[in-house]
């Protein structure tokens, strides 16, 4: 640095032109914005192609023309999106604008608490007992809107070809045999134990307790994500290799690959008590999940029609799988699938608002 001063001089000069440039740019942005926006109310462009959700939250709240708009949450699985879009199609035909927001389950509860989400139409009770207690029975900021209809079940699954090779594995007792359990060993479980794979930590899990209490020679490994489970299933099916995992129904993957649920000891009152107490003694199957709907406590006051429709809205397991199939199998967007199903079931849908 021989002559810092001269450098600085140059930088001075530079700085001021820079600033001019920035000002000009800012001005240009503002002008362009004005020009482009002049008289343009037609800017509600549809998205380009593959996109299914509204990009921005400008639809809700600002147009209270035909019944105040509501916001429904779609959690990250097809069933959840399908319910929300069926409700959207029905409610919009009745004049209530509906925005469907994609977001995860736990921010959904917080959103229902503060009112930025009006309702969610598919909650799996097993994963949200604490939320139920905190928001529905405790704070009463969220209300239970009744059952959705379909039931779901978490369980232990293995590829069906494993049962064909080793029929004993159809029930948990088959896994007591260390030789059979060892078939399921991996680098993570070591050579002496079989691997039991648990997936997404947002699901309720008793597997570690079940393994310990039934004294099975299995090692509990957490994949950490649903993607982990799905990839392991793909590999097991492609290579015909053993795999034992926590999985559930309904799930789109169940239609694609052949998995069989391993029978665990039946759910008893004792088990349910143990689960509630969290004493670590749980040793039976998962209870069936009766999916339910939940809403912000202010929904009825905000939009009585929406409250009525969402309270009445029910789908059977078959109906939900049918609509989900349009999405997963036929590649429709959830909105198209919902529209198609609503059009074919107008009587049923009409009863929700009657």
């Amino acid at each position: 640095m021989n002559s810092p001063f001269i450098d600085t001089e140059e930088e001075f000069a530079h700085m001021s032109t820079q600033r001019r440039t920035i000002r000009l740019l800012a001005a240009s942005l503002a002008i362009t914005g004005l020009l482009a926006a002049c008289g343009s109310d037609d800017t509600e462009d549809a998205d380009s192609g593959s996109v299914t959700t509204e990009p921005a939250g400008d639809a809700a709240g600002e147009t209270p023309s035909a019944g105040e708009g509501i916001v429904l949450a779609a959690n990250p699985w097809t069933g959840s999106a399908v319910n929300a879009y069926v409700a959207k199609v029905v409610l919009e035909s009745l004049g209530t604008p509906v925005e469907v927001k994609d977001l995860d389950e736990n921010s959904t509860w917080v959103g229902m608490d503060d009112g930025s989400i009006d309702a969610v139409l598919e909650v799996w009770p097993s994963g949200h007992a604490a939320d139920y207690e905190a928001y529905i029975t405790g704070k009463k900021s969220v209300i239970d809107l009744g059952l959705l209809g379909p039931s779901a079940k978490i369980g232990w699954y293995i590829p069906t070809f494993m049962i064909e090779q080793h029929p004993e594995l159809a029930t948990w007792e088959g896994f007591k045999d260390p030789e059979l359990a060892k078939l399921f060993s991996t680098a993570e479980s070591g050579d002496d134990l079989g691997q039991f794979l648990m997936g997404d930590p947002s699901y309720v899990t008793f597997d570690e307790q079940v393994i310990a209490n039934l004294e099975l020679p299995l090692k509990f490994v957490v994949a950490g994500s649903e993607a982990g489970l799905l990839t392991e299933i793909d590999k097991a099916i492609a290579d015909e290799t053993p795999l034992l995992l926590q999985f559930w129904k309904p799930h789109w993957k169940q239609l694609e690959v052949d998995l069989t649920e391993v029978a665990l000891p039946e759910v008893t009152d004792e088990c349910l008590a143990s689960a509630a107490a969290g004493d670590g003694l749980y040793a039976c199957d998962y209870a069936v999940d009766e999916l339910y709907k939940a809403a912000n406590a202010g929904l009825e006051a905000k939009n009585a029609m929406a409250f009525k429709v969402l309270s009445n809205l029910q789908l059977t397991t078959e109906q939900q799988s049918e609509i989900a199939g349009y999405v997963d199998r036929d590649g429709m967007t959830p909105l198209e699938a919902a529209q198609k199903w609503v059009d074919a079931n107008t009587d049923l849908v009409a009863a929700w608002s009657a």
Partner: protein
Amino acid sequence: MALATAPTPMAPTFGIAATRWWIVPAAVFGVLAVLAIAVNPNVPSWLDIGLQRWVRDGYMWTIENSDHWIFASFFDPLSDLLDRLVESVLWVLEALRWPGVVALTAVIGWMTAGPRAALTGAAAMLGVAVLGVWALAMVTLSIMLTAVAIALAIGVPLGIWTSRSDRAERVLRGVLDTAQVMPAFVYLIPIVVFFSIGYPPAVVATVIYAVPPAVRLTNLGLRSVPVVTNEVGQSFGCTPWQQLVKVQLPMARSTLLLGLNQVIMMAFGIVVIASILGAGDLGNLVLKGLQKNDVGAAFVPGFAIVLLAIALDRISTGERTVSSRPPLIRLPSVDRRTGSLIGLVAVIVAATVAKVADLSTFPAALTVDISGSINDAVGWVQDNLRKDVPLIGGTESINDFLVTKVLEPLREFLVWTPWLLIVVAVAGIGYLSTGWRLAVGCASCLLVIGTMGAIPGGEGGRTQMWDLAMDTLSQVLVAIVISVLIALPLGVLAGRSDRAQRIMRPFLDTAQVMPQFVYLIPVLFLFGVGRGAGVVASVIYAIPPCIRLTGLGLREVPYTPREAAISFGATKRQELVKVQLPLAFRSIMLGINQTILMVLATVIIAALVGAGALGLVAYEGFTKPIQKIGQSAAAGISIVCLAIVLDRLTQAWGTSPDQQRRP
């Protein structure tokens, strides 16, 4: 805890034994080590300071008191403001339509960095449109720009403050480390509690992540302004404000621009995560692809994020990398005022034409769906690299080796070693590196992990956070070693060959910005669920900075010493090993240091592919906040503590030997 802190007050007296300086420290550490072995080898439960319970109680209090005045009078208005800011930016971008945005990118690029940057920036933006995700990309861009502006508004003043006060620098350093390494999943749900869903929490999460580089590089830039320059300013009677604005900031310009650049890159790194909270942007498409296990579908929006990052990177790099190559096209030179006027006109014309011609959406006929070819390529990789590859055997056997022969033995060793012995050993390494201060610092950080309590589960029904931390440490160390082994040779190559550097640059950009969710599935498929996959995912993310800084370091070695070596008849290899590498040592160590921080920042991503340990516990706070927010915070703090220890040690090794001082 008394064990490790006891020696501090005695430290000054050691100076007496100048000739045999090592005797006293060796004795101190020896005694401490014996004590460490003699006491409980496991973390005692009384050490638990109850942090998990405090955090959970605080969280429950917050959700039960959301009608408290502080929400109505502070968080709600703030959240509205953030929402409006993002919507305004989005409004402008939508009003400009895609031709206007592309033109604006080109104009800004031209003015800050010349025609080449203009062309690259515009091409990248056009690429986003061709991918068919323009509308969502603009949402992402609006969130980004808002967050970057806020991060600079917070970061630059803090950077100026830290450059003037050593105490401020020390205090803020810990805060910045925490912001950078604390996994976002720990605080995402609390952010939603304070800022509701949608854009505001996305902006807040991004700002938290992007402020640290803004502060650090502003501080660094201002501190590296030569004293002489400052004195000249003073002698001409500059007020402190003039001194700052007219002398220091301009002098630090290139570092500040690097700061801007890093702020943008960090912000892009979190964009997918933020979309979980309902922002409805590109990240959402990535997650949808992931749900369907469709790598191609997740890759398209991921690649759009990379292109956005490249566009912003090239036009924000400014004159930092004035190319030595001749300009692409030589235009009659115009001064800046005329130039910006021409640019302004160009942008207006583009936007107006777009409006008149109704080009609001990019023509669908011109979009290209690359998801199919990506799936084919990924399918080929998955089918062919998994097993039966000549020589190396395939990814499955690599994974088996890594898990059974390296990770598991290392984990068992670290868990088996009495915990205080590890604290003492790390303190010893710290002492040997720079002295007592570092030794005490490292030991206290590790002791903090001991106070984080235990979680239910595992053998015996409870697992100490310490044991999980040792599990994580074993994985992190392996990932760091592998990253450095890969990055150093590539960095040397990039430093010595322009062509290699040019070829590597887009790959490095991609590895750094591509949302990790996109490549989780192939990594899982190749390596299987578990720690091996976790290590691989971390390595992919962590090597770019090390390659970049090694290359940069080699390039910045002045020509004179190399010339001297050559004139003494040094071979190419000798020139590299004996001249360039030693002179680039600091830069290389900084690269390794960055790699370490990146590996720790991805502990949670590793947990999503089965690495478990601290990352999984931290992630669980996001999946079951009411039950697990406390554990999650404790795990997050443990990750930060590990990061600080590894960071301080490597930084100490990176300072040149003459700066090191032995007692």
